[in-house]
């Protein structure tokens, strides 16, 4: 299903991506992206309320949920086409699953089948030094790091995706040149250092942050993911 892009949405996405990337233009290598993502199984993992359902819906329908509900029982998401400019990727059928620790066994099943793993976490809470969120993120990555170790040669591509930047007052209203500083500040957090290390180190793990408050913001975040995927 094609993304419901309209001209304003498209340029808005580009503008937002450009702002977040602190660059004048966004030049993505669509061929490389296609090779990396085509026909691959994607696992979207993360604690409760980080935006897993939102991102999966965007990647499978091009829209964001009109109403939000907690994901308790898993939801089957049908296979679909994700179209974005020159990119046209078949997204395989997947599952949207709960973020509670009780779902770890289900996370592992998704992880073991996946070629690409998105681990979502809340930037605003980590920047604010929320101990509960830090503890949870560490626990999640202990598991994910262990599963990646088990797969060794066949390890999935791991993306750590920070969401909810818009909920941090320090982020809102930042100018282009200051967004890069904010991103650096996030990457320097001890917990981020630790989980990147558990995921296999900075060369293996891609870190992306942004907001998914609107469709435009979500597009910008996805642009960043693609940008990181090809660097």
């Amino acid at each position, binding site marked *: 299903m094609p993304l419901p892009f309209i001209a304003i949405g498209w340029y808005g996405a580009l503008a937002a991506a450009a702002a977040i990337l602190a660059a004048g233009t966004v030049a993505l290598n669509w061929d490389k992206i296609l090779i990396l993502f085509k026909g691959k199984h994607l696992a979207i993992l993360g604690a*409760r*309320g980080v935006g897993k359902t939102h991102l999966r819906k965007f990647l499978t329908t091009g829209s964001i949920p009109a*109403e*939000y*509900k*907690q994901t*308790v*029982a*898993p*939801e*089957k998401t049908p296979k679909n086409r994700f179209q974005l400019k020159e990119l046209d990727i078949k997204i395989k059928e997947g*599952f949207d*699953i*709960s973020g*509670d*620790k*009780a*779902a*770890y*066994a*289900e996370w592992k099943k998704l992880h073991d089948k996946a070629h690409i793993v998105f681990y979502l976490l809340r930037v605003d809470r980590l920047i604010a030094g929320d101990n*509960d969120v830090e503890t949870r993120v560490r626990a999640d990555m202990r598991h994910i790091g262990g599963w990646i170790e088990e797969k060794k040669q066949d390890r999935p591509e791991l993306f750590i995706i920070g969401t909810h930047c818009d909920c941090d007052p320090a982020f809102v209203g930042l100018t282009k040149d200051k967004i890069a500083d904010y991103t650096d500040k996030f990457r320097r957090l001890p917990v981020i250092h630790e989980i990147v290390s558990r995921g296999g180190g900075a060369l293996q793990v891609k870190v992306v942050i942004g907001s998914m408050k609107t469709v435009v913001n979500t597009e910008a975040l996805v642009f960043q993911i693609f940008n990181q995927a090809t660097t």
Partner: protein
Amino acid sequence: MTEKFIFWAQALDNSSPDLITVRGEAIGADDSLRRQKAVSDVSHVVKSGNRIFDTRGVQLTADAQNFIIEVPSVQQDRDGRTAPIVCYGQYDREIIANLSDYVADSLCEFVRESGRSIKPEHIELVHQAFSELKKKNQKRRIAFGTVIGAAALTIAILIYGIIRLISSRIP
């Protein structure tokens, strides 16, 4: 009443452990094995089953022997999201007739104990959902009976034909 089912609800603060009860017993956050088993039972139905009913937030999914029904609670979580309650159970020909009553009563008991509530219209939809499951189950049984009957008839005709063939060759 809740001893027949697994109930699962996410905490409204999104940080406390999810509330999971298995056959009437609340499973604590430190009992990760039993909690993960309960979640796997629920997940299995989603993977192997089909969506039978989906109206105004009440969703029933079932495979040949198990079902899960998701019902929105009146309360929303800290982020303003709908907070559904999930009920897992097994069914067979005998209990399907009264299943919606069992589930509705058990749901009411679970929400009362967990300090939540469900709108009466959603309870009504629970009954409708199980009526749909009953209809689908009857259709499946009729289809299964038809296939078995056709197979038995085919085999009988074949055997009859073979006997006729053999007897015609015996002088």
